[in-house]
């Protein structure tokens, strides 16, 4: 029998309804990342406002202005793109867009539940952290390409900050790997069925939280965006849609880091109740971490550059190594000395 060539319409329909495509396009993929980033923008503004005894966005919808960020999205999408004349167009446009792609790649690695996992790499945690190390390059290129003083200074500050805090980030997550015996994020979640890792790894969790807030350039580590000094830092020259991409990338990173914290320290999709509630539990824990990080914004002042570099390279690094030693003794027991 001669094989007929496959019907292109049937092939397209088969591809669209395949589980991988649905996962990538809808949840936890691109559409849900876009909607969650928009909601996180609103959540950030609302919670910060309440902490500062203001009201925050309130006009755009009857429920506390939750559609404010969608209104901003529509406004920014239609604004005229004014790119500075001497700016380097290629990197100027590409850097924030790549930041968004990076954020989406980070989300793809996280197991929200066993069924909605996009990629189950055996070395999930190093790949996640390796993608995180790509972002200082993008921010440096973005800051330089604007060909202006303040964005470049902001880009350099961001480079120092993010590069300096990568090593404590890696080291503090090694404790989790030692306890779970694997780099695979699904196996790390499953190893927490006897107890969440936040208890034996309290020091490591705190270091991870601090360094991940520093990696996302959120307050109190927002020196690269210091508003009174350098006017949004490396994002200063970004118009309309590119500004949206840069801010959106920041919030996607917030989502990704909070989800990673929930996965490796808070037990991911494990929780009381039947198996199919796993997705609800992992999203719930992620939301708790997101709210915690947003609350940090209202609570702390800005860290100075020399304080930031000093504490990143000396204090946090030393504490992370002590955490590894503590974990070793927890695993082996004290006679192992």
């Amino acid at each position, binding site marked *: 029998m001669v094989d007929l060539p496959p019907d292109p319409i049937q092939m397209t329909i088969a591809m669209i309804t395949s589980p991988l495509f649905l996962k990538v396009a809808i949840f936890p993929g691109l559409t849900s990342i876009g909607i969650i980033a928009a909601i996180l923008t609103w959540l950030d503004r609302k919670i910060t406002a309440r902490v500062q005894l203001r009201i925050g966005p309130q006009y755009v919808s009857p429920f506390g202005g939750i559609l404010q960020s969608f209104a901003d999205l529509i406004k920014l999408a239609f604004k005229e793109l004014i790119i500075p004349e001497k700016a380097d167009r290629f990197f100027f446009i590409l850097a924030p867009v790549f930041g968004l792609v990076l954020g989406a790649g980070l989300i793809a690695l996280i197991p929200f539940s066993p069924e909605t996992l996009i990629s189950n790499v055996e*070395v999930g945690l*190093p790949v996640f952290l*390796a993608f995180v190390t790509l972002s200082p390059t993008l921010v*440096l290129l973005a800051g*330089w390409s604007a060909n202006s003083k303040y964005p470049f200074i902001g880009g350099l500050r961001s480079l120092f900050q993010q*590069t300096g805090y990568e090593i404590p980030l890696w080291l503090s997550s090694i404790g989790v790997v030692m306890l779970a015996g694997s780099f695979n994020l699904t196996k790390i979640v499953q190893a927490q069925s006897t107890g969440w890792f936040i208890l034996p790894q309290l020091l490591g969790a705190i270091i991870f939280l601090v360094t991940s807030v520093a990696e996302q350039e959120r307050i109190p580590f927002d020196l690269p965006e210091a508003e009174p000094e350098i006017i949004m830092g490396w994002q200063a020259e970004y118009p309309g849609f590119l500004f949206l991409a840069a801010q959106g990338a920041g919030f996607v990173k917030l989502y990704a880091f909070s989800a990673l914290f929930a996965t490796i320290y808070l037990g991911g999709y494990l929780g009381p109740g039947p198996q199919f509630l796993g997705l609800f539990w992992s999203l719930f824990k992620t939301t708790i971490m997101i709210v915690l990080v947003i609350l940090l914004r209202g609570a702390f002042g800005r860290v100075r550059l020399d304080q930031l570099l000093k504490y990143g390279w000396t204090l946090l690094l030393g504490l992370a190594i002590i955490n590894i030693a503590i974990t070793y003794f927890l695993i082996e027991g004290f006679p192992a000395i």
Partner: protein
Amino acid sequence: MTDPAFLVVAAVTIIGAIMAIEARDLVYGAAALGISFLGIAGLFILLDATYVAAFQISVYIGAVVVLILFTVMLVGPAKGEAPMEHKRASLFAAVLVSMFLGIGGSLASANAFPGVEVCGSGCDLQILSQTLLNNYGTQLELLSFVLVAAVIGALTLAKTEKA
């Protein structure tokens, strides 16, 4: 030569390398070098070495490319300056490169190296870590000494003389 993933990744690597050398602006060259390193990481993944690929991305692209970009921004020609011309060794270099390309191209079609197996337990991450700690532990310690030497060397070179 029938694996499309390999062809795409190898093409990205080689085109990135060519653009890194030939780009007019050094910043574009550094970015193309970064893309080439990403291609190399992809080739590592195709060869079942995913941990080494993550290491390559975080060390090469995350640190070396950033260092190069930083240096280019400080030291390179100002934007829009004319690029430097070639040295007179161009003819020799062109002959050498065509020799290399010829060897490479002829090898790609020959079946000079037989025998491909599924990697199985030989490429496991556990075997990697056990080998690294048991058989190469001394070398790891020596590597940390070399790292200290490199840091001290770079700091000494970068120190400015107090006037």
